[in-house]
């Protein structure tokens, strides 16, 4: 089989690359290979499928008609096992091969399992695919108690859903605080308190020493020697890029596939984007920034480059960004929570929180809880390096209004 443009993956980066290619090249053969058996969906939606808020067949990002109208071949159930860059060829588990002129690797990431004694012998769940979500939803229906190992976004979403389903939930997190990658300790503490108020046991700075089977569930022994038993175990200790099939390809990887600012890898005619890629960080270095808006932007850049779009814009660098709803509250975080030479302005009230980080008059980061700010505007103010000195006091007092006033005149 062959395709001028070949994309491995079918989530945000892959889909936006396909859109960007079709803007320039309306007819060139374009194929999406994906391991999943389903129409494209977002990993971000999975916690909501677990809670029942979203139905698996109602969260499809592109349907058959879209692929037909845009002359895109969508090939589900295609498990790529090897890349031969010299021959410009991919091999699938089925033995089938695919020839490409331009290849995009947008294979995303898979759950990373911690090294815990006994884990391989206990039944546990992960949450990265639609099947995972459906399985977890069924298991929640039968469980009365649960342990969530890892207080990242997926773990916290799942813990909330389970608490709402009247399950006794314990969250175990190695870091001293929940969502440590996104929020500084004060914000995390507010989130943790909300969870505790809703009946979730939050064990921060804790980890599994070992785990063993107990009945249909498990019994975990923690680092401090205490034990926790549960009917259900969900492991959410982070993800790692899906690069296994590239081992013999000669592609350069570090934490992910290393790409330049146009999402090109070291191999000719091979691009990578999204959670699998390691690209420029806004504050230096190269980072895997596993967030949805990042995948969208990188996918667009890669697709434009693949189609020789003269208007392709280089990646400005990854900025951490997170919007998180929990128990009807909203937490928003854009950029960094601190850093050398920066000054912090804190605000908020009894039930809200605000943390603004500025350096030399420029916005470095902002995090809020129950204090809505436009994440897109804050992101732009960081990326553009907008000088906030003339409006610093106003910005600290009212970042939402001041941000809107600034961007409404700057966007041009």
């Amino acid at each position, binding site marked *: 089989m062959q395709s001028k443009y070949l994309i491995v993956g079918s989530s945000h980066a892959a889909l936006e690359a396909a859109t960007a290619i079709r803007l320039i090249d309306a007819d060139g053969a374009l194929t999406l290979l994906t391991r999943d058996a389903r129409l494209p969906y977002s*990993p971000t939606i999975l916690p*909501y499928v677990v809670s029942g808020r979203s139905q698996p067949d109602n969260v499809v990002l592109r349907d058959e008609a879209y692929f037909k109208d845009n002359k895109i071949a969508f090939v589900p159930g295609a498990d790529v096992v090897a890349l031969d860059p010299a021959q410009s060829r991919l091999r699938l588990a089925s033995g089938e091969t695919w020839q490409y002129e331009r290849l995009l690797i947008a294979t995303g990431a898979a759950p990373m399992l911690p090294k815990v004694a006994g884990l391989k012998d206990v039944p546990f769940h992960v949450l990265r695919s639609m099947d995972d979500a459906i399985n977890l939803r069924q298991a929640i229906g039968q469980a009365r108690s649960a342990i969530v190992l890892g207080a990242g976004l997926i773990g916290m979403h799942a813990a909330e859903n389970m608490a709402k389903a009247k399950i006794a939930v314990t969250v175990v997190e190695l870091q001293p605080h929940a969502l440590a990658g996104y929020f500084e300790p004060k914000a995390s503490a507010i989130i943790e308190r909300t969870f505790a108020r809703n009946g979730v046991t939050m064990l921060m700075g804790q980890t599994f020493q070992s785990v063993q089977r107990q009945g249909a569930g498990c019994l975990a022994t923690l680092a401090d020697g205490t034990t926790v038993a549960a009917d259900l175990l969900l492991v959410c200790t982070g993800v790692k890029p899906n690069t296994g099939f590239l081992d013999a390809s000669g592609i350069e990887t570090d934490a992910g596939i290393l790409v330049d600012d146009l999402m090109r890898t070291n191999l000719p005619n091979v691009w990578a984007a999204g959670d699998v890629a390691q690209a420029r960080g806004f504050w230096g270095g190269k980072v895997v920034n596993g967030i949805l808006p990042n995948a969208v932007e990188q996918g667009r850049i890669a697709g434009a480059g693949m189609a020789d779009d003269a208007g392709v814009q280089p990646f400005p660098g990854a900025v951490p960004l997170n919007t998180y709803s929990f128990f009807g509250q909203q937490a928003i975080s854009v950029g960094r929570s601190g850093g050398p030479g920066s000054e912090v302005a804190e605000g908020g009230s009894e039930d809200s929180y605000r943390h603004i980080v500025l350096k030399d008059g420029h916005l470095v980061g902002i995090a809020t809880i129950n204090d809505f700010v436009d994440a897109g505007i804050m992101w732009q103010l960081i990326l553009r390096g907008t000088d906030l000195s003339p409006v610093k006091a106003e910005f600290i007092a009212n970042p939402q209004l001041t941000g809107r006033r600034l961007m409404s005149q700057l966007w041009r």
Partner: protein
Amino acid sequence: MGKCFNTLQFHASRCDGCGDCMTACAQAKAQTDDRRYSRIQILPRTDGEGVELALCRQCADPICVMNCPSGALTKNADSGVIDWAGGKCVNCLLCTAGCSYAGIVYDAEVGHVTKCDQCDGDPACVKACPNEALEYRTAARIFNEYADMEDMFCRGLSACHGCNSELLIRHTMRMVGPDSVVACPPGCIPGMGTVGYNGQTGAKVPTFHSLLTNTATMLAGVKLQFKRKGREVTALALSGDGGTSDAGFQSVSGAAERNDPILFICVDNEGYMNTGMQSSGVTPYGSWTSTTPVGGEMQGKRTESKNLPIIMTMHNCSYVATASTAFLEDYYEKLKKAIEVAKTGMAYLHVHAPCPTGWRFPSGMTTEVCRMQVRTNFIALWEYDPANGLRFTHSVDKPQPVVDYLKMIGKYRHLSEKQVSHIQHTVDDKIAYLRQLTQVAAERRPVAAR
């Protein structure tokens, strides 16, 4: 062809920040007068220089839609509006991370994001604006209706850079269609390739190069011959202002008086621009041309332009209108009427074509110059037919001073204050005269209706 969509346009310079639009939006969308719930936000600039706008742009490449993991946001293929499906939304707020305009924001009161939906094509904010600072632009319809029609000219016509005649004749001929015959007297339009294009004609319909003096009569005869042969065609003249107002006038006047069934379009660039920028009968007072130079004796043209479209109304032919390519919706309405009228009587369209080469202004400014002609009342947009008389098709109230227009153009650069003031008076007088004609028409209408 891709689809174009209606849009909300904000003219910051006309906005006084009264906020009536926000109140109207809050009332329409949240049943409250509290402007915080408005989906359109008028914001004072941080430098204190006027106001700006935060509003959903209904982007063509909407990042909010791309960032949506649930499929709750989609771009409506018919309306162009970014639709939000509440049933699918999971409140993740990632859409807000994709928007630089604060066009989609979280509303804690209702517990989900909200955004402008253009009130299903009837925006409350636009109706509430007392200053016309907000406009609901519907010109997308023109593109959607006409873009797929056949372009009746070959590619690569050699008009000067920035000339709006090519735009005009391509648009016009799309609507006139293939069942037509075109007459072009000497001037820019045949010069750019309409009649002479590598030994052929640039038009895809029969085209003849008439003389300056006989275009209208020759065309009327051709139309008659087609009729005798049993063929219904639109007989179209594409003429410059010289070929219409000066040497061509006796034949145009005769055709109008006989009400010959032709569509005569005068493309007015205020002189003989194709042959070296000589003055014509419609060149305005004060203009520099090669025959009305600026020097010790002369400071540009010393006499007034003759008001050719008004003269045409005096012939009582079936339809007369003025038009500007900066107001294409208006032009299309008039062209549609003119094509219909030209089946039985004479339709005359007078379209203004500022000339970057001969008038000396940057070629990228043509449409802005066209717009300023209308905004300053230097030209007025109106239409006339014998039954209904004359009526304005674009407001002539609250004009900008004519000097705002004059200073855009090189051929007026030498004008003294006295000359500018003279031109302002002439403009005011012309509008006053046209107003009188509209009043005459209003008084006479019931009689005509009988």
